[in-house]
């Protein structure tokens, strides 16, 4: 259905359901309870990040997962998208549609230029070239192009901006033809309260579209070609095929995904800063994709979700909460455990992330998806042949 085979269609439906029902699924614990306060993730600000970074990771996966070219500068496109969107807010109106359109186009233009130059080299050189470009863009945005990006302060909409299409009655926050992004419906059932926010659903629809497009690309002849490039580019050239256009197409598509994500970020919160383009931000994208499983369809989305979830949850936990959890133990044991865990929570979240990332790279190069498949194949011996599909083992 929809041009997908039944397996992919099932996966697609699962993603649709997960995205649309997220406000319910991510609130498994009653709102007031201790567990609910620590572990519930069903609030709009976090869910927006899930889907937006999901889009970003899907896009990154089209480049790295299919072609094996590791871009270390993807955050640059995210930043360009955000800047473009905020400029549209400043010049036209708070309507998000032109903003997102422009952010995708701008990211596309920049990725054509950067891709054309970077793709002349491969391997580590490509990584470093993209890194150099991204750092250059960061420096440009941070200081050199201050009139365009508002430098350190970050770009935002001011009252004296032209906003030529802004009508008198229009909301002064991002909206889609009058539907404000932060408008929401609250739904209280027993101890639970679910929040359905317009902005979240707006982004979720983009996630579903992005995911669908990525399935189609993965299954298309072009996807096959990209995979062939990954497994042996030299052979492709010997066959008489010019691999450049394919690579560039993959790079540009992936850059446009990042631009879309950047535009959505700005649509949720109409301000942006240069730190969104810093190279550690690019590193985070890589981490997301790897953690979930590069080269698989669903992996990057899972990775993005997991990282944003852990980031929020782990950095929220403090010593008092830990003491609460371990209160059933004798005091000395309680204190011992809290002392051991202390460096990994709260501000130490990046340490946890780094260790988790290293563990995945070392032991599970295929990411969480591969881990899940390993577990499944262990329990169902007779269905071994099934488990292989969907995850393409990295060539090389």
């Amino acid at each position, binding site marked *: 259905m929809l041009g997908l085979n039944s397996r992919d269609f099932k996966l697609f439906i699962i993603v649709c359901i997960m995205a649309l029902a997220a406000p319910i699924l991510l609130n498994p614990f009653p709102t007031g309870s201790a567990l609910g306060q620590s572990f519930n993730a069903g609030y709009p600000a976090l869910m927006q990040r899930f889907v937006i970074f999901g889009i970003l990771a899907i896009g990154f996966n089209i480049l790295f997962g299919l072609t094996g070219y590791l871009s270390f500068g993807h955050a640059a496109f995210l930043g360009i998208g955000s800047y473009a969107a905020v400029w549209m807010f400043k010049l036209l109106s708070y309507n998000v549609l032109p903003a997102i359109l422009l952010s995708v186009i701008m990211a596309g233009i920049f990725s054509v230029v950067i891709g054309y130059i970077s793709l002349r080299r491969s391997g580590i*050189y490509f990584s470093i070239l993209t890194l150099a470009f991204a750092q250059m863009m960061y420096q440009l945005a941070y200081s050199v192009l201050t009139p365009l990006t508002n430098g350190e302060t970050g770009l935002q909409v001011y009252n004296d901006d032209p906003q030529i299409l802004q009508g008198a009655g229009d909301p002064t926050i991002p909206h889609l033809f009058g539907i404000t992004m932060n408008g929401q419906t609250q739904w209280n059932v027993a101890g639970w309260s679910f929040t359905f926010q317009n902005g979240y659903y707006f982004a979720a629809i983009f996630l579903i579209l992005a995911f669908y497009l990525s399935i189609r690309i993965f299954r298309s002849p072009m996807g096959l070609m990209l995979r062939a490039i990954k497994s042996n580019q*030299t052979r492709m050239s010997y066959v008489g095929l010019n691999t450049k256009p394919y690579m560039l197409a993959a790079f540009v598509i992936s850059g446009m995904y990042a631009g879309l994500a950047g535009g959505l970020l700005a649509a949720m919160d109409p301000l942006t800063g240069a730190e969104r383009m810093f190279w550690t931000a690019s590193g985070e994208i890589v981490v997301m994709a790897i953690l979930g499983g590069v080269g698989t369809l669903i992996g990057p989305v899972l990775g993005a979700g997991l990282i944003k979830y852990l980031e929020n949850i782990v950095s929220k936990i403090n010593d008092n909460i830990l003491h609460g959890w371990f209160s059933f133990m004798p005091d000395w044991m309680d204190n011992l455990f809290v002392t051991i865990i202390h460096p990994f929570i709260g501000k130490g979240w990046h340490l946890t992330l780094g*260790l988790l990332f290293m563990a995945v790279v070392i032991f599970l190069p295929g990411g969480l998806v591969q881990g899940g498949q390993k577990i499944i194949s262990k329990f169902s011996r007779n269905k071994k042949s099934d488990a292989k599909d969907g995850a393409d083992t990295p060539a090389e």
Partner: protein
Amino acid sequence: MDAFILQILNGLDKGSAYALIALGLTLIFGTLGVVNFAHGALFMIGAFVAVTVQKLFSLSYIEIDETKTDFLGNPLKVQMPYVDHWFGKGIGEWMQDWSVPLSILVVIPFMFALGYVLERGLIKHFYKRPHADQILVTFGLAIVIGEIVKAFYGANPIQTPPPSAFLGTIDVGVMLGFEPNAIAYPTWRMVYFAFSAIIIAAVFAFLRFTTFGMVVRAGMADRETVGLLGIDIDKRFTFMFGLAAAVAGMAGVMYAPILSPHYNIGMDFLVLSFVVVVVGGMGSLPGAVLAGFMLGILQSFASMNEVKAMLPGIDQIIIYLVAIIILLTRPRGLMGRKGVMEE
């Protein structure tokens, strides 16, 4: 003319740091074939060794001096550093003053051991994996090291002054026959440049004139053949990793007075050092050193006011710009050899 010389001098200290880090990166890459994203973290650890040694030397206990009284008439309490207590006042104070250079004695064995452990414990398992995996695992390692340092030392830069003898500036202009104060240059930066020149020369001499170095060079050229000749090349390459870590550590120690160490300086230097390595030519040691100094000096020229007036902000992006141009016109870098990382 004096402004010209001043900019060259300004570029030298930054250039020396780039050159030292790039030298280590190239050594690791040339011997083990691993792209080490954690090398900046090793530089940062070096800087923090200097911080730690300075802190340790100033550890003190409170002693009551019976001979003097404070303004209330009680016996005066004096902070008595342990080093003063153990070695006598003169030596103790000298040690505190000279803590940064003295840290070098600590950093060499420490970084060497750390490099050895890293290579044997982690990097070893990644020789047969794709380069992307090597980048990723060392990138993860860099995050972890950075966060551990942050957990111990906090996120703020920590001031680490050089020995008082090296505070102030040298008037280089007078030596070259200019007016006094035309070219004043901080003494410690001069020391840093001299120090790194010595280290670079030592590494080159080690590779050039010792049997060990000869074997390592042979191994870089053709690892398999050297192995067939009955030489345990892996062991020597591990040693080289330790050496590269020690070089990065020394670069970090000596840089601590110039730039107050914080947990992220490694990352800042790493990106630039990679650019330096690529510009110099992957796998070429002289290329790395040359490109390091060249880019350092170029950066300082770009930050001249006259240049900035013509091209505002050029100092921020000049290095990346040059890297992109060089990679596109001379894909192998300035002195790169054929066949390195080409597939």
